[in-house]
């Protein structure tokens, strides 16, 4: 068997629908069509009446999910692209995120955001906006980097009693494959050591884990052993695992495909600086997308986001200090 990241997301939803009658899926074209990316392929057929096409109404999509959650359901909302969630933003950050705190009634909704850049997708189909959700109290923000995590974390997202922003990377949809789906997994909120090393800690998440791994392989040829922390969960952030890794390596590079200002990388560095200051022997650095919209042309796009190559360059700069 050979399962892609995208299939894992489908399988997780199939399993959630199967094992929990409270689960339903709502989103544009998720029904008979199976979704713009086919993440809900065949699910409408397998679970009649539980996979519903929505109008092009992101605000109402999220609002409806919150209402259904109040009544005990566990809706999964698919945004066609993460970028369009900005239209449903208010319902996510003000309605869903505040419900439990205000009323003690839980809000178990999962909002799936197909996010991140792919070549030729341009400014409005490429964004990485996990940070704007993580900024608001009351939300859990996940960003799996592997097929296994896509599966297990989505299952856990649906099972959790709080609203989860599930950032699934479109670049990984087809590229990433696994032998089989996991039966066990790290719990949400825990980071994973994607590669062990003693010379440098790279903290990253989602698609950038793979760029970092490629960079680590290249650096290994020069004898550098890079440790890679895959955050998995952007909020809550597993500061302990980060700190323990930095304690081992003394060096920190944070890599994010998102824009820099106030992004995940800023949050990580800020925590390490405050809590693990003595652990670092050189200043921590971050590497992000450039601070412009995401460009359309493949050449520009490749230069806009961090890549194995630019990670290697940033790492070498750290080693030179």
């Amino acid at each position: 068997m050979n399962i892609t990241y995208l299939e894992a997301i489908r399988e997780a939803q199939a399993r959630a629908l199967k094992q929990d009658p409270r689960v339903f899926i709502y989103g544009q074209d998720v029904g008979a069509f199976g979704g713009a990316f086919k993440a809900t392929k065949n699910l409408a057929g397998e679970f009649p009446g539980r996979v519903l096409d929505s109008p092009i109404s992101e605000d109402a999509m999220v609002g409806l999910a919150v209402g259904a959650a109040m009544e005990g359901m566990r809706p999964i909302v698919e945004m066609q692209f993460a970028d369009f969630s900005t239209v449903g933003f208010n319902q996510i950050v003000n309605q869903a995120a505040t419900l439990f705190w205000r009323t003690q009634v839980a809000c178990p909704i999962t909002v799936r955001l197909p996010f991140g850049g792919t070549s030729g997708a341009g400014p409005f189909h490429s964004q990485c906006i996990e940070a704007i959700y993580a900024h608001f109290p009351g939300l859990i923000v996940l960003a799996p980097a592997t097929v296994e995590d896509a599966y297990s974390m989505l299952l856990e997202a649906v099972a959790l009693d709080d609203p989860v922003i599930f950032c699934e990377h479109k670049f990984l949809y087809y590229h990433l494959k696994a032998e089989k789906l996991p039966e066990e997994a790290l719990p949400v909120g825990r980071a994973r050591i994607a590669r062990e090393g003693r010379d440098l800690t790279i903290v990253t998440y989602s698609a950038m884990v793979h760029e970092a791994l490629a960079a680590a392989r290249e650096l290994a040829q020069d004898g550098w052993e890079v440790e890679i922390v895959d955050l998995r969960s952007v909020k809550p952030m597993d500061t302990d695992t980060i700190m323990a890794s930095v304690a081992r390596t003394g060096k920190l590079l944070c890599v994010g495909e998102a824009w820099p200002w106030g992004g995940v990388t800023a949050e990580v560095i800020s925590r390490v600086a405050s809590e693990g200051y003595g652990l670092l022997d050189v200043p921590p650095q971050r590497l992000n997308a450039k601070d412009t919209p995401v460009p359309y042309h493949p050449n520009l796009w490749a230069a806009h986001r961090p890549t194995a190559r630019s990670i290697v360059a940033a790492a070498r700069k750290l080693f030179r200090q």
Partner: protein
Amino acid sequence: MLRTALESATGDLAAATHLGAYRHMLLARLLDDKFAALYRAGKIQGGVFLGRGQEALSASIGVSLQKNDIFAPLIRDAAGRLAFGETILEAIRTYMGSALGPMRGRDGNVHRGRPQDGYLPMISHLGAMISVVNGTLLARRFKKITGTVGVACIGEGATSTGSFHEALNQAAVEKLPLVLIVANNQYAYSTPTHRQFACEDLADKAPGYGVEAHRLKGNDLTDCLRGVGEAVKRARFDGGPQLVVADLLRLCGHGEHDDAGYVTQEHKDSALGRDCLKVAEKFMLEEGWVTGEQLEVLRSQMIHEIEEAVAQVQREPAPDPFAEEWQALSCGGLSDVRMD
């Protein structure tokens, strides 16, 4: 006491309904008056938003609903809230920030409710509650619970929000038993209707969504009971979403900080400017369903009740920041510990 009047009304159903709704109207008015007084005395922090002039419409909603229905009131729905089962204690506790209130001091004034009872606590963003009501109704369909309806209330100003539109359309597509009540009180804060919309009548929106429309005189209890009752019934018996548009006038400021100097004399002098409470009283007196004396007794009983409740709440504990769980997630274990 009103029950006596009622009994003597020779079992007249109209009398019972009117008197029942009127009770909530009066209690809401008196409660609002008390909030206004507390605000002026500096006893309430933040805004105070009253439903003066809108009690007939609001009470009609509350009395048209059943226990298992969903109700998402807005800022001017004190009467409807009471009629739906809220106690004045809950209202006062929320305004005064009591730790014992439903919002435990975390949220205040009109931002109160109990989702577990189908009574939804509004967020401030106008229009945002409508799709939430849709969600509760869809959930019931999933759970094969039939015969319940959901009411969402908004002002005419909120019809300009994208949320209103998306949600009404959504309800229409799903054929949900949503009753969307628009209280057209002629102003959104200071903004007159001609700066808010350009249609002849807000009810003209209904065909564009494929939903049924109901127009009613918002300061006439009889018409409100009829119109809202009909709409709720239509929704309950699979008539799909219902759009109710009630014309009336807000007889107070947007909030108690606002003197409403922008309300035109013409509006005040028009039929819209008639106080629904007075209209209802006059009608009931004329019908002989109640006497002036009975109304006076009722009023003073209610004032007493409110005063007692306020006094009780004033003795209640304020929320204690040190005892407070500063925790937005229900899964406490997933809180980001470094966020303290």
